C-alpha cells in the first residue's frame, strides 16, 4: 500500500509540467550563477571555499540556495496541487491516510530534492570549470596530487570541499520538506513557497542567539554556504570563528525549528478532515 502511495506521488510529480519547468529553471540559473562566480574569481591558486561557493552557486542575498528554493517549490506544489485539485476528495478523511500521504509526499520530495541537488552540483561544476579564467589555478581543488594544504584523500575533513557539498544537498532536501510542511499548514502553494523563503530569515536570529548564549559559533561552512545576512551580525563578535565541528548545541539549534515545523504539521493534520 505504501509503495503504491509513493508510486502515485511519483506519478503526480512526474505528470505535472511545473515539475520539469522548475527543475530546468533551477539548473539553468544555477549554471549561470556558477559560471558568473567562477569567471570573477581572482587569479592565482583557487581556494577551496571559493571553489565551493562557485559550485554551490551561492547568491549572496538569497535566504536559501537556489536549489533548495527549487526543492521547496516542488514540495509546496506537491501538496498544494492536491489540496487544490483533490482527485479523490473523500479518500483522505482518516488521519492515518493523511499521514501516510504526507509521508509519501515527503519521501518523494526529499528524493527529488536530493537528486536535484546532485544534478545541480554536477552541472554547476561543469559550468564553473568551463568558465574559469585562465589565470586561476584550479589544480589545488581538482588534482589531488597537487594538493598542498588539503589532502584530497580526506575531502570531508575540516577544510575540505566535501562537507559543504553534503550540507548543500541536505539543505536542498530540507528546503523541499520545509516547503511541503509549510504548505500543509497554509494549504496554498504560493503562500507556502513565500513562507519557506522567509523561514531562514525568521529562524536564523533565534538560532544565532542560542548559539551566542552558549558561547558557540556557526561552523564556517554554514556561513559560506548559507549566506545569512541577519543573524550572523549578532554572532559575529563571538571569539571562536573557526568552529568546524557539529556539536550538540549546533545540532539542536538547527533541528529544533525543523522539529517544531513537523509538530505543527502533525497537529494541523489532527484537526483536519482532508489534506
Amino acid at each position: 500500500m505504501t509503495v503504491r502511495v509513493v508510486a502515485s506521488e511519483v506519478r503526480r510529480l512526474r505528470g505535472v509540467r511545473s515539475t520539469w519547468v522548475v527543475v530546468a529553471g533551477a539548473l539553468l540559473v544555477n549554471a549561470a550563477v556558477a559560471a558568473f562566480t567562477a569567471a570573477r574569481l581572482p587569479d592565482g591558486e583557487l581556494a577551496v571555499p571559493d571553489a565551493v561557493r562557485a559550485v554551490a552557486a551561492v547568491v549572496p542575498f538569497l535566504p536559501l540556495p537556489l536549489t533548495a528554493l527549487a526543492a521547496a517549490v516542488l514540495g509546496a506544489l506537491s501538496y498544494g496541487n492536491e489540496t487544490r485539485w483533490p482527485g479523490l476528495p473523500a479518500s483522505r478523511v482518516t488521519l492515518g491516510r493523511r499521514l501516510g500521504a504526507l509521508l509519501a509526499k515527503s519521501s518523494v520530495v526529499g528524493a527529488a530534492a536530493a537528486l536535484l541537488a546532485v544534478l545541480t552540483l554536477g552541472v554547476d561544476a561543469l559550468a564553473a570549470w568551463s568558465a574559469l579564467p585562465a589565470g586561476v589555478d584550479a589544480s589545488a581543488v581538482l588534482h589531488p596530487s597537487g594538493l598542498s594544504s588539503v589532502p584530497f584523500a580526506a575531502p570531508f575533513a575540516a577544510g575540505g570541499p566535501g562537507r559543504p557539498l553534503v550540507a548543500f544537498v541536505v539543505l536542498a532536501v530540507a528546503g523541499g520538506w520545509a516547503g511541503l510542511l509549510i504548505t500543509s499548514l497554509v494549504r496554498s502553494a504560493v503562500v507556502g513557497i513565500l513562507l519557506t523563503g522567509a523561514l531562514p530569515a525568521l529562524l536564523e536570529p533565534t538560532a544565532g542567539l542560542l548559539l551566542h548564549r552558549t558561547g558557540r559559533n556557526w561552523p564556517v561552512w554554514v556561513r559560506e554556504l548559507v549566506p545569512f545576512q541577519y543573524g550572523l551580525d549578532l554572532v559575529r563578535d563571538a571569539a571562536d570563528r573557526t568552529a568546524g565541528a557539529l556539536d550538540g548545541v549546533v545540532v539542536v539549534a538547527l533541528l529544533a525549528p525543523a522539529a517544531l515545523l513537523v509538530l505543527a504539521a502533525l497537529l494541523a493534520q489532527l484537526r483536519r478532515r482532508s489534506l
Partner: protein
Amino acid sequence: MIQITGLTKAYRRGRPPALLDLSFDARPGMVTVLLGDEGAGKTTALRLMVELERGHGLTLFDGRTYRRIRRPEREIGVLLASGRPEAGHPGQRARAHLRMLAGAVGVPARRADDLLEQTRLAGVADHRIGTFSPGMHRRLALAAALLGNPSTLLLDAPTEGLSPGNEEWFGAFLRSFALSGGTVLVTTRAPGEAAALADRVVTLDAGRLAADQPVVEFRRTRLHPEVLVRGPQMARLADLLVAQGGQVRRDGGAGLAVSGIDRTEIGELAYRHGILLHELSDRVVERPVSYPSALPSGSGRSGQVAVRTVRQGQRQGQRPDQQQGQGQHQEPATGRAEPDGRAADPGERRPATVGRPAGPEPGRQLDHRGLQAGRWAAAALAPNPPAQVQAPSRAQGQVQQVQAAPVPAPTPPVQAPPPIPASTVDLTRRTPRGASALSRSTARATGTGATGTGVTGTGAAEPTAAEAAAGAEVPGAEPGAPGGERPARPDGVGALPGPGTVDAEHLAANPTDAELLTPARIRGVGHQPAPVRPFPGRPWSAEPTGLRPSGRTEHTERAERTGRTEQAGPAEPVRRPRESGEPGEPGEPAEPVDPQGTARRSAVGDEDGSE
C-alpha cells in the same frame, strides 16, 4: 445500503443550521436523488456522510461509518463538487491523472485505462485535463470515483451545468449502475432530472427533509405539467382556454402557461379559431411540497413520537387508496404519509370497490425497491418479449385514448411497473381517464384543474362504475383492464383467470396492462401520457420534454412505433363516423376511443406540423 440518521450541521451564534435531522435510506438497486435548491444542504449532507465535515448524526454504509471502512474507495465512490471545474491538475494528462489516483486507491493502473474507455475518454486520454470540457471533467471525476470498483456511488450534482447529451449519459450510466445492484445517491437541483433519474426522491428544503417519496409519487405530487403557448393573439386564446376549463396564467410578454389542457387540444383550438401560434410546447414546472398539515418529515427512525401516531392512523384509513386509487407502492418502513391522500379519500374508494373484487391482496408486497428493480430489469433485459413488444402494438387504442384525455392536469403516476400483479395499481386511474376522453365536456365540467389527485380520482371512478354497471365484472387481478380494450380482445372477458393466477404469461396473452404501461414508461414523466407524435417517422427525441429514460427503452419504443403505424390505418376510417356522431358520452364504454385517438392524432398532425 446507506442509512442516514439524523444528519445535522449546526453553526454557532444563531445561524440557521445548514442541515437539520436528515434521515433517509438509500437502498441498493435504486437511484436515490437528493433534491433541493441552492443552499438546501445537499452538498453539506454529502460531505457529512463521508465525514469531510464535522456535524452530528450518523451515516452507515452497510453498517459502518465511512471512517471505519478500511478501504473506502473500494466500496464507495465519491464525486464531490469542488469549487473548481477541473477534475484534476490542468497540466496533467487524463491518463496520468487516473493512474496516479489508481495508485492512491491501490488498484492496478490497468483499471485506469478501462475506466477511460468506459467514460468515453479514451480518445482524449493523453491530453491535458485543462483542455477538457465540463462534461469531460465530470466524466473524468466519475472515472476517478469508480476506480476502486465501488458498489455505492455518492455524487454531488454530477450533471450540474452539463450539456443535455452529457446529462443523458450520466443518467443512463447511473441507472445502469443501480440496475446492476449498486446504490446510487445523487444530488440535483432540477426536479425534472430527479424525476427522470430517480427511483426515490428525497427533497430537502432549507436543510430540512421536505419529502421522501418514490418517484411516481414525486412525479404526481411535485411536478406540474404546463403547456407554454406563445403568439400574437394570446388574450383571445386565453379566453378560449379558460372557457374550455383550462387554467391560464401569463408567462412572459406574449406567452401563456396553460395547465389542464394538453398541447394537442390547445393547438386544435387555436387552429379552429384561427389563432396564430408561435410556440406550443410542453414543460414541467415544480410545485412546492404542500402538505395539508404537519405531516411527518422524518423517516420514522428519528424517533418522533407524533409521527408514528399520525402514520398509523393514516395508514388504516388509507390503505385502500394507496393500492388502488393512487397507484402508489409505498414503503411501509418509511411511513411517509401520502400528502393529498386524505383529500382523495372519498373519490378513491369507489374504484376500490368496483374495479377490484376483493380487498388488497395480502401477499402483495408493496416494496418499491423490488418494483423498481423489476422495472429496470424488464426494460433492459426484456425478459418477456411478448408482454413488452407485442403489447404496444395493440395498445394504440389506449395510447391514443390516453392522449386524448382532456384533463391531464396533475399527472397520474406513470410508473412502468413490471409485469407482476403489483403493477395493476396504476391502471384503474388511467383507464377511466382515457375513457373519459369521449366525454370531454363533462369531464371538464368537473373542473379538474391542477388541483390534485383527488379530483382526478373522482373522475376516474365514474367510467369504471359505469363499466361495472354494464355487467362486465373485471377480475381483481386486472382492475386496470380498460373497458375500451375489451371489444378489441378476441377472447373476451370471461377467459380471464382469477386474481391469483395472473403472471407474465397472462399478461403476454392479454396485453392490456403492459400495453397501457409501456408508453408510460417510455414517456418517463407522467404529465403527458399522450405521446403526441404527429409523424410516425419523427424520432422520439424530438419531443420537447427530455425526461424520458434514455437508451434503455429503445426497443419498446420502436415496437410501439411500429405498432402504432400499423394500427392507425385500418382503425381510423371505420370508427370515425361513430365518433363524430356521439362525441361526448361520459359513461360510454370506451369502444370508439381507439379510433378517436387515431383520428385525433391525424387531425392534430397538421397543427403540430405547422408549429
